């Protein structure tokens, strides 16, 4: 198994190559999430029991990033990313549990995953098992009222095996998160709902892994500060790139600047 940084780097290349080849947007929201996904899957597949870590991608539009990371953990063939979102591909623009076992629920409508996670967490409680449920939320997704119904419920029921990871990349579909609904103090909001909250650099494996190890008596919110479109200076932190796709020139420049050929020649060759 390659080291986490390499896995993340390769996942990013694959995400960008696929977005260039196949189009269909949401590139930035995939790129911001790569390290978190890599760290979670590493945790899931590191032990003997995969069920100990359940990963719920509530922000289903980060599907491309999700698939890229899955391929680096050899759950799917990287080749499949050439057909992302194409007709009859099983890799659709939003994750579907009918296509992949690793997808816990078919997402695409925001605000549902946290409640779903509450149910899974509660089942663990009743069965007296101690598997952890990780729900990945977008910061824009936290506009949805249902998120707060679920947050309230989780705290009231002491669902301490429920962890929400918020990909706080500050960009939503047509606006910056802070311009839309004020200063996005999500950490404070989760805190006031009775959650434990920790804020991290969402691109630092050291900080992510530390956060994933935390045990609490309350549900835990990991506010991961990330950069939308991370790693592409052109893309980073721009609302317009939420939906745009890279051109061939963008991809070539990226490969050159990052010296991607050193670590991901095989992936680049796939898309020639």
């Amino acid at each position, binding site marked *: 198994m390659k080291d986490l940084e390499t896995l993340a780097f390769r996942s990013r290349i694959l995400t960008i190559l696929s977005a260039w080849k196949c189009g269909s947007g949401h590139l930035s929201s995939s790129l911001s999430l790569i390290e978190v996904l890599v760290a979670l899957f590493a945790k899931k597949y590191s032990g003997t029991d995969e069920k100990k870590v359940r990963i719920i991608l509530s922000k289903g539009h980060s599907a491309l990033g999700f698939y890229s990371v899955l391929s680096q953990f050899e759950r799917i063939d990287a080749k499949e990313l050439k057909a992302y979102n194409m007709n009859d591909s099983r890799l659709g623009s939003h994750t579907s*549990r009918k296509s992949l076992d690793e997808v816990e*629920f078919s997402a695409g409508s925001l605000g549902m995953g*946290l409640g*779903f996670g509450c149910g*899974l967490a509660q*089942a663990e409680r*009743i069965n007296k098992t101690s598997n952890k449920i990780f729900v990945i939320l977008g910061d824009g997704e936290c506009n949805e009222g*249902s998120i707060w*119904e679920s947050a309230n419920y989780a705290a009231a029921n002491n669902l301490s095996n429920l962890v929400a990871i918020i990909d706080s990349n500050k960009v939503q579909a047509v606006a910056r998160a802070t311009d839309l609904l004020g200063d996005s103090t999500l950490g404070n909001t989760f805190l006031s709902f009775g959650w434990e909250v920790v804020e991290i650099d969402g691109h630092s494996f050291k900080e992510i892994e530390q956060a994933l190890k935390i045990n609490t008596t309350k549900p835990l919110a990991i506010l991961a500060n990330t950069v939308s479109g991370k790693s592409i200076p052109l893309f980073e932190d721009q609302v317009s790139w939420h939906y745009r796709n890279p051109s061939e020139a963008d991809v070539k420049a990226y490969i050159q600047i990052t010296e991607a050929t050193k670590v991901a020649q095989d992936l680049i060759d796939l898309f020639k």
Partner: protein
Amino acid sequence: MRRALAEFLYEKASTDGKLIFLTGDLGFEVFENFKKDFPNRYINAGIAESNMVATAAGLSAAGFKPIIYSIASFMTSRPFEFIKILGAYNNFPLTIIGAGGGLTYSSGGATHHALDDLALMLMIPDVNVFSPAGPQELKMCLEFAQNSSNTSYIRIGKFGELDLPGINEEIITPHQILEGEEVAILSHGSSSTDCLAAAKKINQILPQSVAAYHFTSLRPINNEFLQNIFNSYSKILVVEDHWPIGGLYQIVLSALQVGNQHCSVDRLGPPHQFLDYPLDNLSVKEKFNFGENSIILKVLELLKRL
């Protein structure tokens, strides 16, 4: 019928370790025994229907068989998308109970009226939809629902309902609750009780003139049986406590078209509008002409005896 639900929960919980009950903070003093003896399986999810459905879906995904409960209007409208996406699209089977279907809570105003609940649930592919009239029938629906691989919606009344005669476990086949030859009344839920009473009175004076059929299930329906009803009667009267769109009336009209049949179809039920006056249930049925007396008058008109 809520007592029947509470009994079902209690009996089942002892043998089925997967049964779990969630309520949206409703059911005052109805589920006390269940709550006391099975505290692990009773969840008051609070007045948060969307989260309740999502949490139930998570429990379903984990192998439990959730039964979720609220007042029909709140149970189906507010969390509609969650039922659609998690209960149906994702196929995490749930049993959803809407209490106080139709105008059961007439005096509560339009917010408490469930005149679209059946339409909403029928709109979602693969969801079973039931409207039992009495307690034993409800238990049959619950049994079906809990064994189904699809999500089910069961509309119930409040309390005090009696079982109709002639209901058997073949709940997807409409039950003939009265024999007759010229007019067939088709109904479901509490309306069937009114229809039976009205039809019996008519048959006393004009023997064998009107038949009554009660639909426990609106989906799935034994279509062959339904087409046979159309074959056997030239006049159909649909009576239901639901708006004219998307309920039994619309099912009947569609089935007639599909089967290329030629009966006349009349409907009695609330008009397609918001009813916002404090009126008790009997009075609202009087006012909008779908109570027992109105059914009698309508059938006599159809029999050309008026």
